[in-house]
């Protein structure tokens, strides 16, 4: 891992087009500003990992029984919302 020391307001440039700047340091909280092209996804690692774990837990067998929904959700489900997929 490359480790760099940066002062407040200083930046790092990655691959010429991604800028990472130290915006604020407050105790053990560091505010980081990231400027990247719209095509570069930037995520908090814990959110990414949380979704990954949730997916692993969600994978199931198609034969498994589905829960019955109560109340409003069942009502709402009746006139199914727009879920058409037109084949290309």
């Amino acid at each position, binding site marked *: 891992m490359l480790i760099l020391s940066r002062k407040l307001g200083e930046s790092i440039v990655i691959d010429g087009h991604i800028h990472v700047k130290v915006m604020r340091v407050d105790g053990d909280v560091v505010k980081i500003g990231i400027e990247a092209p*719209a*095509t*570069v*996804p930037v*995520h908090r690692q814990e*959110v*990414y990992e*949380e*979704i*990954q*774990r*949730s*997916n*692993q*837990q*969600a*994978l*199931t*067998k*198609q*034969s*498994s029984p*589905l*829960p*019955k*929904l*109560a*109340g*409003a*959700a*069942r009502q*709402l*489900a009746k006139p*199914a*919302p*727009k*879920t*058409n*997929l*037109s*084949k*290309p």
Partner: protein
Amino acid sequence: MKCAETIEMETTAAPTTSRVRMPMGILGFEQIKDYVLVANPDEEPFVWLRVEDNTTLAFVVIDPFVILPDYKPDIPPADVEFLGLKDADDALLLGIVTIQGNNRATVNLKGPIIINRHTHTGKQVIITNAPKYSVQHPLPVADNVA
């Protein structure tokens, strides 16, 4: 292949299926890219997102707006571009359901699957306003099987 064939996931008698290509896979399952969306009228509002090569492995998905009508996911511009979405109506949103037991099921609202209705390309998107929502938003499950 016939053109302009429309898949309806509404109340038709037989299950309807539709192939979905997820070039980036699903987080944690990046290697699985081909899925089939199977909608059975008896099972609505649930829909199966089945792994194409495997007859049994599947995710249960649901239209998140059925559960949370005022759900307002912010989709990152990179994902809008990746999916080729020109209009909000181009997108089919599905939340992955986790069945936690007989009386508990949750839906992931932080990372919905978004599918372009026209190209059938999909991606699990981490919404920009993810902190506002839960990965385990509880579904209103009926106390007992009716």
